[in-house]
């Protein structure tokens, strides 16, 4: 836990506590258990990756943390306060950029400030957020004119402009081509280091989890339980072919029940 000390000092971040959270969905009359007694404490400024098979309820945990849904049992706390509704301090970035197609890039990014009536005083923050993801020249473009990677960067800028203290990322690079994904992973990492939010990243890419996170939490199949917790103590930037990471990758895959020989 070498990174714990570094994480504590971060000012623009919050802790996230998940206490005995279970959740289920009603599906055509049947109850589908999704989460089963999840217990997780994310420290302020920490970068935690949730890893697991698809459909294992990782995204559900993010929706609960965002406040879009309430858990059936247990509680989620942001800095000790229960999470009951969406709040701009916690922002969710989806796998699809989900940009509003009728709004320009600038107005997409401005959405959060506009919705809270802050836009008139804080217009510069929109420009700053666009500069942060290096898209200031595309301010007047419409979403359909952007590539997948650019659209996802706009989605990240749209989240960051609100100064989130907790950024919830639901497979944000899942649909990007592998080269774009590599550069986006680096960008996310440098944003995290620069801005200092707490990050909770859902992914099914073991390598991505190990490259970015301080801690990797492995989920089981549905209903999801935490099956392993792996601390990654290596400082950033990390190399993909670092023998320690390769070894960790093998260990993680083994806990998930997958042979790394494949």
């Amino acid at each position: 836990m070498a990174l714990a000390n570094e994480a504590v000092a971060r000012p623009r971040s919050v802790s996230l506590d998940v206490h005995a959270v279970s959740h289920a969905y009603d599906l055509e009359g049947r109850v589908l258990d999704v989460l089963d007694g999840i217990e997780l404490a994310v420290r302020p400024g920490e970068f935690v990756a949730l890893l697991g098979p698809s459909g294992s309820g990782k995204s559900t945990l993010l929706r609960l943390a965002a406040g879009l849904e309430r858990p059936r049992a247990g509680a989620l706390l942001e800095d000790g306060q229960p999470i009951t509704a969406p709040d701009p301090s916690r922002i969710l970035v989806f796998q699809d950029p989900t940009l509003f197609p009728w709004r320009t890039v600038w107005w997409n990014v401005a959405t959060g400030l506009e919705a809270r009536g802050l836009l008139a005083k804080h217009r510069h923050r929109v420009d700053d957020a666009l500069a942060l993801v290096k898209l200031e020249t595309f301010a007047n473009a419409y979403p359909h004119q952007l590539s997948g990677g650019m659209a996802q960067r706009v989605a990240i800028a749209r989240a960051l402009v609100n100064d989130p203290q907790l950024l919830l990322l639901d497979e944000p690079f899942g649909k990007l081509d592998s080269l774009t994904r590599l550069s986006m992973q680096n960008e996310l990492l440098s944003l995290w280091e620069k801005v200092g939010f707490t990050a909770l990243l859902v992914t099914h890419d073991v390598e991505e989890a190990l490259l970015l996170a301080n801690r990797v939490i492995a989920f089981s199949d549905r209903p999801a339980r935490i099956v392993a917790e792996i601390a990654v103590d290596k400082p950033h930037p990390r190399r993909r072919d670092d023998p320690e990471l390769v070894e960790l990758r093998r260990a993680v895959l083994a806990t998930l029940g997958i042979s790394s020989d494949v």
Partner: protein
Amino acid sequence: MTDAIQALGSGGYASAESAARIWKAGLYAALAWAATAVVTVALPDVVPWGSAGLFAAITGAGAAILTALAFSVSRLGRAGERVIYYGPWFIALGIWFLLWEVSTAKLGWLPKPFFSPPHGLLNVYVVDGPRLLVCILYTLRLWGLGFFSGIAVGFIAGVALGWSARVDYWGMPVLKLIGPVPATAWIPATFYFFPTTFAASIFIVALSAGIPVAILTASGVSSVNRAFYDVARTLGADNRYLVFKIAIPASLPHVFVGLFMALYYSFAVLVVAEMLGAKYGLGWYIQFQQAYSGYANVYATLIIMSVICAGIIKLLFVARDRLLGWQKGIL
């Protein structure tokens, strides 16, 4: 696409052969128009219609302009390209006028009063112009009041239906029952409920315009991608913001389909709405003339109505392209 290819083609010719190039289609069109003019004045009408001289002058002038264009159009730039694009239409129009003249006024194959030669229609405008102008204004007033109040109510109702599950529960079945009933079927009831026949007419037009807008707005609002709401809510949006900044703009493409339908329906019921004790209006004029077998007047009025309708549709297209420019590349 063909437009662009034609433009490229003609541009190439213009530079290669300079101004010497002659627009052949223009000459053919001029020939057809000139023939119409000659036939109109040279041959006697079976039954006199009036305004033959004026029609011949107009088609003759058209022929002269087309002839001039045939020699100059390659130097007119973009406007010239548009003219060249419509060349085949100019020819077709000239031939159409010619056949129309010959078969009606000159040979009487299509007899008075059921058919009218083109100069018969022209004569209607000449003789009855002022009255038609007043009728146009009355019709536009009725249509404008009915259409705009109808789409305003329809739009608000549509948003409520699409947004609120409770409004949808009670409102949608009612709308589905009322929707297919022709607006004109309400005439007896409207006579009872409205103080004046003018108000009743406005209601009929408004109803015909409002229902398609309500149905399509509702389907547009209810089919908005739920993820847009999730994103906006995490960004701090309240319900008001979700309705006005997410649901409504996202459903505008549907709304415009509804508006186009509303336009056609409202024009279709306009004639009937003007039956309700109106003293002026194009619909009233049509019925009045029909009663006296003034079919030339009926045709002439129908032409006015279709020109007005086409003009408003054009305006609506312009508005749509301005508001829905973001859709380019999605559709």
